């Protein structure tokens, strides 16, 4: 069973439906015990980093999340929360992945937020990318970006290059929305459940 952490975000329904289409059972929960006992954990997130961290703290989930040993997938803001810090609202995050989240600057021809379908450039192997050809399109919606580090498995580019898929030990992150990324996104979610 996959636990979807109820961080108060609004994109939870589409994640739940995406797993339903794969025939995988999910539970939406903010209970540390249920999260600890799940085979896989999804940390979703839409909204601002600071609000999301406050909600996680209110539910006593920060230490729970840090101590998980089963596969954990942060999606969009959920991925950004795995890092040390976010410039968005000057927010200390979970510190599971090293690095700081920065604002994506607008430039001529570069609209912000980065919204729409962009390609994944694979940097190193990851179970999440099993069966996914290089340069597949996935759906992004974000205004802040994660740095490219040794943990970056795939990057994307919009004005600058940023991390699109990350992995450190049992912690995975997707900056895009696999639940809204067509067949490629469905494969990535399937990989998370079956191969991670």
């Amino acid at each position: 069973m996959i636990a979807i952490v109820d961080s108060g975000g609004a994109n939870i329904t589409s994640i739940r439906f995406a797993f339903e289409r794969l025939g995988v059972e999910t539970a939406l929960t903010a209970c540390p015990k249920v999260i600890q006992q799940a085979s896989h954990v999804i940390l979703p997130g839409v909204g601002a980093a600071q609000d999301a961290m406050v909600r996680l703290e209110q539910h006593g989930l920060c230490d729970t999340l840090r101590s998980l040993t089963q596969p954990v997938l942060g999606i969009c803001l959920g991925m950004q929360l795995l890092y040390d810090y976010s410039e968005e609202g000057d927010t200390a995050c979970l510190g599971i992945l090293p690095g700081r989240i920065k604002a994506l600057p607008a430039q001529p021809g570069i609209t912000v937020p980065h919204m729409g379908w962009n390609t994944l450039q694979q940097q190193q192997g990851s179970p999440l990318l099993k069966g996914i050809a290089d340069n597949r399109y996935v759906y992004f919606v974000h205004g802040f970006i994660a740095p490219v580090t040794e943990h970056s498995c795939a990057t994307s580019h919009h004005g600058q290059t940023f991390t699109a898929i990350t992995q450190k030990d049992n912690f995975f992150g997707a900056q895009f929305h696999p639940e809204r990324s067509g067949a490629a996104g469905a494969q990535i979610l399937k990989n998370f459940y079956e191969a991670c």
Partner: protein
Amino acid sequence: MLAKRIIPCLDVRDGQVVKGVRFREHRVVGDIIELAQRYQQAGADELVFYDITASTQARTADPAWISAIARVIDIPFCVAGGIRDIESARTILHAGADKISINSPALENPDLISALARTFGQQCVVVGIDSHQTDNDYYVHQYTGDESTQRATARRTFDWVKEVESLGAGEIVLNCMNQDGVREGYDIAQLHAVRQQTSLPLIASGGAGSQDHFAQVFTQADVDGALAASVFHSGELPISDLKQFLAEQNIEVRQ
């Protein structure tokens, strides 16, 4: 590279997809779920569902059909119509919509844009603008879902575009009313001018009638996406053919 988006717009009335000309004479074109699935399979990048009566009748779109769509499709979709406060937005987003689009209520209460952005994140707040060319300027129109209620406002489109960006909107859909429903091409001059006013993603709406119109709006107005209804609903321009054509013109599309 970020792909240009092709976005079918489905006008919804009483749970069915309808289409009118210049917001009039609505006729039923099909079932919402069937059309949503058909467009997803054809390669649509995103869908917009616009509840044409919710706004004018002061009610919110029905979460039942929103959830039914969210359950079956795996591309993003936006719901517009009658969202006038945090709670109605929450209902729609929790039903499974990825974005909400607000239009007339944002004109009544511009602070709604910042309240929604603070609560749900900038990325899911789309502001729809109905813009009409009058004399040598562009003006925002309001309550356009119903001919008997629609009216011009005193707001210049360019001013409103800048204001909604500063309030925290995540995307703008600019519906050029002079062109809407007549299928003679997007309003390139207006879209190009608005493109210079904002760094937000900009979606063109109104006037699509042929594949050349899409190529023109992407190359000449540099919009991020192009929204259309009747040219897709009628079946005369399959999205897969359109994308093939755009790729041949060196326009980045997802295929």
